[in-house]
């Protein structure tokens, strides 16, 4: 059995429309930025199922969703869960609470609905009535208390003080864990009142159980000569202090009393869990791992209990490699039970890209704007084989996308380096807007985008995170092949189709130009477009070409200089000169090529702008090619300098339109950061 679906309404940030979270058999990770409701989902589960630590959770007034001003108070909280894949033991154990399918062969499911109603105040306190019912829409019978205990989840809170939890003391977690392990009562008891210590031998001691040992030890202490001496002294004073006829005497005992089970608990509470071979006090991280191990004991030990483990932020205090190890281990626990009846279900919350990247995409649920988006197969527009691809390539550098308020997906390093700077220079700082860059390194651009596209948007709603796919058009101007491919005559061009066909396209291939080229562009866009995803395709050819070409070669000089500097850098040319000297030299060289371009254009009757841009772009693709990423670094520097030194420098007007649009789009988050408000209390 596993909890397949959870629906929450009017609880904390989730309003009357509610949220439905689809959970996975085995491991589910709830990811999302702060305040996205991860903890509210976990708390809803704790309310619904109860927890094994027996912590008494009660609803308070601020658990009710606050309706916006002007709207009447929001009404009852409802939290309902649906359990599926019931094993035979579940079906018999919950027989009176099941909901059956109507078709032959349908498997029964278990619905649970918790409602909390505000019932005014009683004795000056808000009174909130709760009920836990079974059946569709909570129409079935109330769940019996004993039955509910079977569903109790194991809960690991975030930012736990693991050290305190593991040390001795009243109600220590360790004592609870040890107490609930089977076999704690095995062994003989020790009858402190009648046992004769002098005849109590080693064999007798061996037979004692834990509690027996404790009581035996206490008795030894109480009868130690030093303690006896103390008692005599006290009594001798007492004697002198009492009136005639009084008979006060004292006794000294180890403070431990109550029933067997109470004394056993007190005994266990004296224990502390430590790591061996630790040289001194351990850090929080190790303690956390130890704590989790401790909880896992409980899970594994109980056959009847519904094995649900709720872990908030397992990454807390734990460094990256250990986080991965932890996730692997949790996954292993799930996998090791195969299809056994009490296969554990683990639900974690995290905002660690580390963890998110390690967890199978199928097991992620993204929480955003009060909605939950499972990224499991079938829930997104991804194809099944895309999951295999993403399992390999969605690494920690890309896992940011699960937490971002805007995502820009680019094909290569140059875009990855340039875009944040360009955005910053047109006052759309990505960091400020919570935008993440995803550099796919040439492959699978659209697959990442489709993570955000819902297969069933009517039911799930649409993700509000704007996702921009930035890609090249890859159509050269007609002069392109002559300049960058050193083609002399059109007769050298390979055919567009058939054997030995050329991959590259030239504007001339598209006739009539407007219609066919647009169609070509639309086709690229359509590969990932819709819902929150938008593709931004270069207006002309590639990033560098378009930068050099757009707006009458507005940035051609900068792009050329950056390329030239990159080439010199890599080939160790002019290394004796300062950057400024090199910079000036590159500028000179740019002047030369503008002139060449003008002449060539005139000669061939080509567009001067196109020829110049081609010549600039040729720096990256012909001869001693400039590294695109190094050139991008230089270009960033050049542009930043210009923006800094020239207040009127209008980068926005110089950039190609598709880049501006893409930047505007990803920073247009439909989900602005909550506005802080500080109120007097």
């Amino acid at each position, binding site marked *: 059995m596993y909890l397949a679906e959870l629906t929450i309404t009017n609880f904390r940030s989730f309003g009357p429309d509610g949220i439905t979270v689809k959970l996975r058999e085995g491991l589910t990770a709830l990811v999302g930025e702060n305040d996205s409701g991860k903890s509210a989902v976990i708390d809803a589960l704790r309310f619904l199922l109860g927890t094994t630590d027996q912590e008494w959770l009660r609803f308070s007034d601020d658990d009710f969703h606050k309706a916006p001003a002007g709207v009447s108070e929001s009404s009852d909280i409802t939290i309902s869960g649906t359990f599926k894949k019931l094993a*035979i033991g579940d079906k018999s*154990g919950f*027989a009176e609470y099941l909901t*059956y399918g109507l078709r032959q062969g349908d498997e029964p499911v278990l619905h649970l609905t918790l409602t909390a109603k505000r019932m005014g105040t009683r004795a000056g306190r808000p009174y909130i009535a709760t009920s836990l019912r079974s059946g569709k829409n909570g129409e079935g019978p109330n769940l*019996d*208390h004993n039955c509910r205990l079977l569903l109790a989840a194991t809960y690991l809170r975030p930012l736990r003080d693991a050290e305190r939890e593991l040390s001795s003391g009243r109600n220590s977690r360790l004592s609870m864990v040890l107490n609930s392990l089977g076999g704690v009562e095995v062994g003989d008891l020790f009858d402190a009142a009648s046992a004769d210590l002098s005849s109590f031998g080693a064999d007798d001691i061996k037979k004692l159980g834990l509690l027996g040992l404790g009581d035996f030890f206490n008795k030894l202490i109480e009868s130690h000569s030093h303690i006896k001496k103390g008692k005599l002294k006290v009594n001798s004073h007492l004697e002198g202090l009492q009136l005639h006829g009084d008979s006060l005497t004292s006794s000294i005992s180890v403070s431990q009393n109550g029933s067997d089970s109470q004394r056993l608990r007190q005994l266990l509470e004296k224990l502390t869990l430590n790591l061996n071979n630790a040289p001194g006090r351990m850090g929080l991280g190790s303690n956390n791992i130890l704590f989790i191990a401790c909880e896992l004991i409980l899970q594994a030990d109980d056959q009847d209990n519904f094995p649900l483990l709720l872990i908030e932020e397992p990454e807390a205090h734990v460094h990256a490699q250990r986080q991965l190890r932890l996730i692997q281990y949790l996954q292993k626990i799930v996998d090791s039970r195969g299809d056994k009846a009490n296969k554990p279900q683990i639900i974690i919350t995290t905002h660690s890209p580390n963890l998110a990247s390690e967890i199978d995409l199928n097991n992620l649920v993204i929480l955003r704007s009060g909605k939950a988006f499972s990224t499991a197969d079938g829930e997104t527009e991804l194809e099944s084989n895309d999951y295999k691809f993403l399992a390999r390539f969605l690494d920690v550098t890309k896992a940011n996308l699960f937490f971002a308020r805007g995502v820009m997906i680019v094909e290569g390093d140059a875009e990855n380096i340039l875009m944040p700077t360009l955005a910053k220079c047109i006052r759309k700082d990505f960091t400020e807007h919570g935008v993440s860059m995803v550099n796919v390194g040439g492959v699978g651009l659209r697959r990442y985008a489709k993570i955000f596209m819902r297969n069933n948007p009517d039911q799930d709603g649409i993700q509000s995170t704007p996702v921009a796919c930035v890609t090249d058009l890859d159509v050269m101007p007609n002069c392109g092949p002559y300049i960058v491919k050193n083609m002399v005559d059109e007769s050298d061009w390979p055919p567009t189709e058939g054997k030995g066909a050329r991959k590259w396209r030239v504007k001339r291939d598209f006739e009539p130009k407007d219609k066919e080229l647009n169609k070509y562009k639309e086709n690229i866009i359509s590969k990932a477009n819709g819902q929150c995803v938008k593709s931004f395709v270069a207006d002309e050819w590639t990033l560098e070409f378009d930068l050099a070409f757009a707006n009458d070669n507005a940035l051609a000089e900068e792009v050329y200089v950056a390329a030239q500097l990159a080439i010199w850098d890599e080939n160790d040319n002019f290394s004796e000169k300062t950057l400024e000297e090199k910079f000036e030299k590159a500028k000179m060289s740019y002047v030369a090529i503008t002139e060449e371009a003008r002449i060539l254009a005139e000669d061939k009757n080509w567009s001067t702008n196109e020829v110049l841009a081609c010549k600039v772009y040729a720096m990256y693709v012909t001869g001693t090619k400039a590294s695109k990423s190094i050139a991008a670094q230089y270009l960033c520097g050049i542009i930043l300098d210009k923006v800094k030194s020239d207040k009127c420098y209008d980068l926005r007007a110089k950039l190609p339109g598709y880049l501006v649009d893409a930047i505007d789009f990803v920073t247009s988050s439909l989900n602005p950061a909550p506005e802080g408000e500080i109120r007097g209390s």
Partner: protein
Amino acid sequence: MEVNLPKITDDDIAWVVSILGLPDDAFSTEKDGGARERILKSVGETLDVSACPGSGKTTLLVAKLAILARNWPYRRKGMCVLSHTNVAKEEIEKRLGGTEVGQALLSYPHYIGTIHGFVNEFLALPWLRSKGFPIKVIDSEIAYSWRWDKLYPWTRENAEKARVSKSVIKATNSQLSIGQVPWGKGVLGIETKPYLNMSNSCRESIQKFGIHTHDEMFMWANDLIDCSSTIKQHLRDRFPLVFLDEVQDNSEAQSSILHRIFMEGDGASCRMRFGDSDQAIFDHAGKVNRAKTDKFPLDEAKYDLPNSHRFGQSIAHLASPLSIGKMSLAGQGPKFGESKDTAHAIFLVDEASTGAVLKAYGQYLLSVFDEEQALLDQLTFTAVGGVHRDKEGAEKYRPHNVSHYCAEYDPDITNKDPKPKTFLQYVKAGHRSGGQFALEGTGGESFTAVERIAIGIINFSKEMSPQFNPRPRKRNHRFILESLKDDSANYEKYLKLVSYFAVDRKFPSEADWSTTWRGILIDIVTSLSSITPRNDHAFLHYQQQAGLAENHKNTQSNTQVVEGGGRKATIRLGSIHSVKGETHTATLVLDTYNISHHLKMIFPWIKGKPKKTVSDSDEKRLKLHYVAMTRPSHLLCLAIKKSTLEKDGTINKKAIDELKSHGWGKVAVVDKAGNCEWL
């Protein structure tokens, strides 16, 4: 079904004997030839226990349950204890309620309740909910009349003319077909308008209004088992041990569904049945619906408990001939000495003296029981009859029913769980049970009265509007307060009503009722159900609280008081059905009539000379009166028509001798003043 339960040891038995406060030897090897001990210690064995009246089978069952619950190793598997009444459950609540074991027994994963409750909770209701049908009322009577009222007047009138019973409108399968409808001497065609009208009414009541009959619950339960082949396994897995009490009263429908759920095919649950086939009596007069499936007791699993701890050998001897199962009762009850053993009496009555027999019985009680009044008040004296409801035309068969012996007898407040027909009957029942609980010291006096009144109001509101549909709950009074909290005027009125009827325990005069209280009640019900009941609705009829003015009779609780020599004996009246399972000090069995006079027909058995062949109707009469005759611990009396013993207008001396030699110590002719002429 494999169960791995710890063995039941002598320590367990010693523990349960002490926790239940039983004598140390209650389950010793000597009792019933060790049968009790064997039954108690048996684990994982299918048993049928045939228990005679007063054998203490409920105690045995409770003891066994307590031991099993104490060592119960499972958290998701439990014991299922089913019966027709909640006697076992109440026994557990009473004897073990405060203990850990008692609480465990009464909650998950165990189930203790009625067969209907079980079938509803585990099969029918989950299935109806899964199908999305509403569930508001499960009550055959309400369902039939609701459906009938929904018919077009034309259909209804014609159906009434054609003598069609209301109960034909019930779903016979999951397609909600109403099946064959007898119409006059023929059958109603399924294409006819009246048929479609009835069919629609049935469909609407089930699908839209959630009004269901009890039979339909069994139909749904069977339907779910048909649809989900594995559900039986789940229920058997959940309840590896099944206990059935009062098995003799199972109908065929109950017996077959229980057999289907727990026994049929592989992996049967381990079952233990308790019952007494001699005591099989039914509410449906004239209809033998004894279960054919799964006969009880099965010879190969049979254990007899013939020893009664209720009565002595003299009563055992008188009742034994009536045992259909030919159980030879052994009276091991408290011994009372010769005088009472020979005191069992037969009162002979005629037309004129029928109404005086209670007086004669009372006087006789006062002579047999010479205790002080205070002690006398603690004894239970009863008079019971097979038929207790009066009927048109019954006069000519006097004595036809209990009311012919006592004119003030009110059959509607005699049931253990009375379902009164008017509000004032609810009030009476509330006062009565409140008083009773107060006497036993087991319940808050006003609480039971308040609840009774609240249930009355809720039931009436439900009747007014099916939309008003509270779920069954424990605190009906709280529920009404909650429902009325936004209607402060009626909230106040309700509190006023409760304080008058329940707290102050007042009963209004007819004038007070019609000028004040009836109006208040109408307002409250209107507020709850949004429909205003008519002033003359049957539920609002006034009824005299008879008996308060007259000293000797108290119909309010169906008792009659007989005085003599400065002492008085209080006799409680009731039907035989209503006293099943009870123990009385003395019981007077009244002759009543159904087709023929009962005691007259079984007279051969009464005098210890049973007929060789037993007809079906004899069998029913014998079982019914076997129950009656095994109630008393001390004194058994019969009231028989004098004519039964008369031959040619005079009493047959030989018959008297036969009775006396059989053990009926006294035979008297009663005159119309209640005086006895001892023969």
